[in-house]
Structure formats: C-alpha cells, structure tokens
C-alpha cells in the first residue's frame, strides 16, 4: 500500500489535517484510527463549548467532530478504523494491524502524527494507600458515563482540576451523584476559568486549592480518601489532614502526549511538552513527518487543534510537492522566565509566509503582565495580557519581518518571557 499522506489518528487533529490536505489538492490520503469510530475523545465530550473560534457557534464534541467527519466522507478520504499502528520507521513506512488485513506495511510520502494524549494514572503521582476498585481517570469515567451509559460511583472526590475533571464534576452532579470536593495541588486551577465557573461554582462544588489526596482507603471498593493542605514545596501538612468518605476517586492530574510511535521513528521529543520538537511547519526532526494536536502539545481548546492540524497538513502538502525549504536560516525558539515551553521550538525563516503562530503556557498565574519576545537584548514584541494562567494557552503571532535583525538577516534565536509590571 502506498499513500501520499498517512495520518495517524482520526481525532480532531487527524480529521482536520485530512480535510485540509484534500482541499489543498492531495487525493491519495489514508487516515488510520485504532478506535471503531472517528472523532477521537470528542465523541465522549457531550458538553458544549466546542467550535466558538472555528465555527462561531457552541457545539458539543460529537457535533464538532461530525463537521469534519462529513467532509472526510464527502471527499471520499480513505479511513481505516479499528486499526492499530504498531510502528513507524524513519523512512516513513507505517506498520499497522487490523482484523481484515492482518499486519500490513503502508508506505507514505508524508506522515502526520495525530495520536493525541493519554491521562496520567495514579502511579504517576504516587498516591499512597490501598488499591481498591473505584479509582478512575476523568476520561475513563467520562467514557463510561457518556458512551457506555454507566456510573462509576455515587459519592465522588476529584483530584486535580484539569478541564475533564471539572466537566465530569458537573456531569456526575447532573447524573444524581454527589461530588464532595475537587482537590487541586496547585494554588490555582489548571482548567479553563469558564469551566471553574460553569462546572463547579454553578453547582456549589467546593474547589480546594493547595490540597492533595494523601491516602486512599478501602479494601474492595474505595471507602474514602484523606486529603491535606500542602505547603509551598507541595508537601502535605499533616496537621490539616481531613477524611472524606466517598466510593470513587477521579483523577484529573494531567495529560501526556502519546509519542511511543514517534520514538520508534527516531523523532526527538521536547522534555517539557512531551511532544515532538517541531519547526514552523510542524515538521519533526524526521523529514516528512509532521505533528499536530495533543500529540504535539496538550491543548485546552479544540479550535486551536484544528488550526494546528491545518498548518501541519499544509506543510505536508508542500513537502510532497517539494515546496518546503530545508536549507535555510534557522532561528531557535526559547522559553524565558515565566514561560514553561514554546511550540514550535525552531523556525526556518525561508518557510515563513507572513507570520508564525507560537503556542506557550506560563509557569504561574500572573495578572497585568506582558509577554515579551526578545532577540538578544532587543525587544521585538510586547503584548499586554490581563491574566495569565497555566490552564490557558497563550498564542502569539510573530510577523515575518520581526525575525530580521538590523542588517536584514534573520536572528539566531528568539526568547519569550513574562514581564511582570
């Protein structure tokens, strides 16, 4: 089998990339999806709030996905469902398996990685205690409730205030269960402000900041958890320990891009984002392999995923038409003080059309701060931000001419910083 573009994953990133590549004139496209339906995690996100930027209306997750699925169908783009990619090689051969075809090798001119992310489990945050039934990640619980039609518990404590956790707090409440508390380690929520308001405040669910679960109790089923406040070093203050009886603990403690396949192709990962290192074209260090969506960096809005997918698809199309310039002047992108990471991590000046969109997250909550972009000591952009929080991604456009130094040659590196006034 041979395709121009093989896209791995039929979530919002993969679907968006497929549609864009088709609209840019490529016909020989294959989407490979391990689940039995396209749409990815959007299919279990039956709440609204999707598409405000992309479609200027409020859609549910399945509705947002459907807009793209319809186009994929209309365009007749090939999609293999129930198919698991086992391996990708650096020369762009994809090995996949399914029930109909067995193990197959698919040759691609370009590959777009769109495998999404997974949730951090209990072990990753080392909560001590027993190991009974009744501990779920928020996404798994969401799948049970929204897709399978079952409740994972009645009296619930949620650890972590990531968006899925917040949304599940509301969902459980609407289903007649009691959410006793949302417990957050950090002094701020890692979810969107609108979700704190709409999912917790509106239902009177307490959010305990600077708290964590220090023990899980129960032999067969969760019987309760002990929570405590934490100090500045995130160490529990034992004198504040409090027992909450519950039958379920939901974990919403972070997402990790799923890059096992990327590694098999020799793709270098950013230790902070967990996603591939990419350039302005969303191309990884392996030529012709591009990445977009949550496999690249965990997004908080699906609309931004779609944008990123378009860019990756555009670049892939350019790549197979030999229009992507490899040689050229490279600009390193650095995260300075107050910024946790910036994507893309490098820029090839020759490939910039008119601007580069940078995604980043701050390290902390800041009010009335500036995001500044510097090249050496020279400030090239300064943008006022009312409120910065790690739960909300920052997008900064840098116009092409800003990458030029005084002598009109591209700068060697640029740095993004938070400037507190």
């Amino acid at each position, binding site marked *: 089998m041979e395709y121009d573009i093989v896209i791995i994953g039929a979530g919002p990133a993969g679907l968006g990339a497929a549609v864009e590549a088709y609209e840019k004139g490529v016909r020989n496209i294959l989407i490979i999806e*391990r689940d039995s339906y396209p749409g990815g995690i959007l299919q279990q996100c039956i709440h609204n709030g999707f598409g405000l930027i992309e479609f200027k209306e409020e859609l549910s997750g399945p509705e947002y996905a459907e807009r793209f699925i319809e186009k994929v169908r209309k365009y007749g783009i090939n999609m293999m469902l*129930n198919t*698991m990619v*086992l391996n990708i090689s650096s020369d762009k051969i994809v*090995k996949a*398996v*399914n*029930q*109909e*075809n*067995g*193990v197959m090798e698919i040759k691609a001119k370009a590959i777009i990685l769109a495998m999404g992310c*997974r*949730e951090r*489990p*209990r*072990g*990753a945050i*080392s909560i*001590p*205690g*027993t*190991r*009974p*039934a009744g501990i779920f*990640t928020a*996404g*798994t619980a969401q*799948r*049970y*409730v929204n897709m*399978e*039609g*079952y*409740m*994972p*518990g*009645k009296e619930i404590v949620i650890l972590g205030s990531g968006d899925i956790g917040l949304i599940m707090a509301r969902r459980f409440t609407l*289903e*007649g*269960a009691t959410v006793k508390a949302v417990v957050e380690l950090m002094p701020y929520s890692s979810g969107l402000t609108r979700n704190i308001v709409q999912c917790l405040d509106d239902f009177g669910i307490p959010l305990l900041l600077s708290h964590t679960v*220090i*023990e*899980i*109790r129960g*032999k*067969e*089923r969760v019987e309760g958890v002990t929570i405590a406040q934490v100090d500045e070093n995130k160490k*529990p203050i034992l004198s504040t320990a409090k027992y909450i009886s519950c*039958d*379920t603990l939901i974990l919403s403690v972070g997402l990790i891009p799923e890059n*096992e396949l990327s590694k098999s192709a020799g793709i270098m990962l950013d230790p902070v984002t967990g996603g591939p290192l990419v350039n302005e074209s969303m191309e990884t260090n392996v030529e012709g392999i591009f990445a977009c969506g949550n496999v690249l960096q965990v997004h908080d809005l699906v609309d931004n995923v779609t944008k990123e997918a378009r860019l990756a698809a555009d670049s892939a199309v350019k790549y197979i038409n030999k229009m992507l310039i490899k040689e050229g002047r490279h600009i390193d992108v650095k995260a300075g003080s107050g910024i946790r990471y910036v994507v893309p991590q490098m820029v090839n000046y020759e490939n910039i059309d008119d601007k580069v969109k940078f995604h980043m997250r701050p390290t902390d909550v800041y009010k009335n701060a500036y995001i500044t972009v510097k090249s050496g000591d020279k400030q090239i952009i300064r943008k006022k931000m009312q409120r910065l929080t790690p739960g909300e991604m920052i997008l900064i456009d840098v116009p092409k001419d800003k990458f030029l130094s005084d002598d009109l040659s591209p700068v060697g590196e640029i740095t993004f910083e938070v400037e507190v006034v």
Partner: protein
Amino acid sequence: MYDVIIIGGGVVGSSIARELSKYDIKVLLIEKEDDVASGGASKANSAILHAGYDPVPGTLKAKLNVRGNEMFDELCKDLDVPMKRVGSLVAAFSQDEVESLYKLYDRGLKNGVKNISIISADMVKEIEPNINDTIVAALYAKTAGIICPYGFVIALAENAAQNGVEFVFNQEVISIDKEDDVFTVKTQDKEYFGKYIVNAAGLYADVINNMVNDKRFSIHPRKGEYLILDKEEGYLANTVIFQVPTKMGKGILVSPTVDGNLLIGPTSEDIYNKEFRKTTYKGLEKAIKGAKKSVEKFNERKTITQFTGVRAVPDVDGEDFIIGESDVKGFINVAGIESPGFTSSPAIAEMVGEILKDAGLNMVEKDNFNPKRKPVIRFNELTDEERNELIKKNPAYGKIICRCETVTEGEIIDAIRRPVGAKSIDGVKRRVRAGMGRCQGGFCSPRVLEILSRELNADPLNVTKFGGRSNVLTAKAKEYLINSYKELLKSGV
C-alpha cells in the same frame, strides 16, 4: 470425598496442586479470593528466583531454595512461563560489607549453589554499567533469575486443572473438623470432605492450623513496599541488584522485570494487621532512597504503579519453613513460607508429595498426566507472518485492546476461557498484561470490562476489579436521578 484438599491458591498451594495432579487421586483446591495468586504474597513480591546463598545451611529453606531454583527451567518450559536467568549481585559499597559477601559466599557453597563468585568493582561495572561508582565488590550468582510471579502461579493452576484438580474460589474456610479419618472443611456456603488436608493458606496458615491443631502457631505479617517504573527505565539494571542483607531481609533491590520494567523495593516493616496492605509516603520514599544506594540514575517520576507485598513470618524458633504432618494425622502444614518461598515452591510441592505418601496416601502415577500447559499466544512476541496466519484463523487477534502493552482481544478471550480462567479486570491483567502499561488501563479497562461481561454472560454492573465487592461500576446512568426523584415523590414534595 476428596483424597486431598489444599487450602490456599498461592504459589505454594498451586505448586502442590500441580504436583498432586500427576497421581491418580482426587484433589480439590479451595481459595478465598476469586482467583489464584490474587490475595497474598504470591501476587506481590520481588519476582525473583533466588540462587540460594542466603538461608542458613541445613535448614529447609536452604535445601528447598537450591532444589527449587534448579526446577524452574523445565517447569517454565513445560508451562510456557517467561523466565530469565539474569543472575544476581549482592553489592557491597564499603569494605565492611565485603566481609558479609564472604559469609554469603561460604553459605552458598555449603548450600550447594552453583556458579557463585565474588567479583571486583570493575567486573561489576561491566555487568551493571549503571551501578553507583561507590561499588567495592559484589557476590555474583548466575543462577538467580526473574519471573512473573502470578503468571507462574496461574500456569501451575491451569496445568493442575487440565490434569483433573478441582478449584473452588470465593470460599473462605471457616472451620475444619475431623471425625473417623475424614476432615470436614466448612466454608461460608458449602462443606467439603477430604482424607488429607494441606494447609497452604499463606498469611492465614496459622488460622487454618489453629482450627484443628492443639499445637498452635502464629504468622506475623511483614510488609514491603515496591515501585514499578516505566519500561524506559528498564535499561538501568541487567541483573537483580541486592544490597548486603540485614536482619529484616535481603534489603532493597533494583531489578529488571521479566517484562522489561524496573522494579525497586521492598521496604521491610512488621505490621499488626494482615490486611494492612497499603503503600505509604514514608515507605515509598524509603524504597526510593534505599534503591538509590545501588543505582542513583533512575527517575522515580517514571513510576507507573506502586504496591505492597506481605510476607508470612512464622513465630516459631529457627525461622524456618513449617512443613510437615501436624499432630493431627492427615493434616499437613505448609506454613511460614516467607522468602525464598517462591523459589522453593516446586521443591516444597515435591516434599509435600513425599509427606502424603509417608502418611499413607496411595499415590499411583497417572499414565495420562500432561506436564505441558496449552501454550499462550502472545501477539507482541510473534513475527508478522505468524501474526497474519493467526489473524486469518481468528480475527480477534487482529484487534488491539491494550495499546500500551499491545494486547489483542484474542488473548483476552483466551485468558477468560482457559481452565481457571480470568473472571475480573485484574484477573485479565495478571494473565495478559492488559492494563499494566503506562496508562494503567485508562484506555483499555472499559473494553476489558465489555469483553468480560460478554464472555462471562454477566451484567457489566457485576464485573469486578478482583472479585468480592470490587465492582467497577455502580449504577446505570440516570439511575441515581430516577431514585432520588422516586424518593421525592414518596415524601410528597
């Protein structure tokens, strides 16, 4: 009426069951949990085949450890259980500790351990390039190995069942009476009758013994906390790296697992409640700190799960295994099987066979005993040609359920349908590793639950994590709402 009733489905009970299945006798194994290797020490331990230099010469521990270790090659081949003889090091990080190495070396020689030597720091570094530079010397035992402990127990049980041993689960023994040479074993639901009883109840062997014997003993639980790290960290150890032992045990180890993860632990702490099997901040910190003494480089943030194992320490003198016919004729104790109990288990089973013979049980060898377990298909280990042939025959092997460990639906169905098959999410996990990877079942557990529900013809609400009341789901969607609405109506609001 059974010839032999074995109480306890851990590694000891299952080894004995498999050993007795060679003979033309009627054998029953009673287990209080819903699966073999699911309650106590056989599920949660260091997963190591000890070479045998640790136990005091002349003890049962010494004899059975060395004999048991030798038996694993053939057993693992017959039972299709992955095992690797990776060797072990007892690492000395000071001159004082080197002295202890010589003591262990002498013991090893006396115990008949083959292939042991004391090697220099340079040689250790060659074998373990990631061991800390402070290494002075090590005792190297080539016969030590690593294995999947519950995988071995499950294989023993399957093979025993295949050869006619009966298994009952979820039956806790509440009393044992003896009258006219017949034992009546009462559980919460039923009564079983047997001529001989083998007490292999692990942590609860004292309770079982004390039901019939005037000569009482007690088993003290000693817990150890462990961490399992992502396969990315697996490269840090090639052998089992012990430290010089203390009174409380063999110290904290750093070891590869047979599946390629890195295992660190255990701590060692006497506890007073046998069910107190939880991990603690203190314990986990201790395990990490202790392991760093051997290998500094591992990243504890790559932990995928942690667990606690409990060892059964007997209160009798000599600190040896308690194996033999008790004062009550026909009642055989196999108790206090702490480390190196796992390694010793096949030899213990042989010994129990002899004891039963001596006690008058007529043991005639079967002519149709099949020592081989039906091989397990592990998709992950097949070549692409083998995979394609398999998928053509059975498409369920073309559907990946567990993404992290590449486990197919075919493997899960097989695990459920085999003799002594999986009945719970954890049962599936222990048999095929679905849910054991880095996402710990986040993606696959709803799928596994669906397959279990279909294969066992059970309502999804009745599917458990590990039997008992460990149900995964609690209600159908909307049920809580409907119920509270009904209550509102009743109260006339």
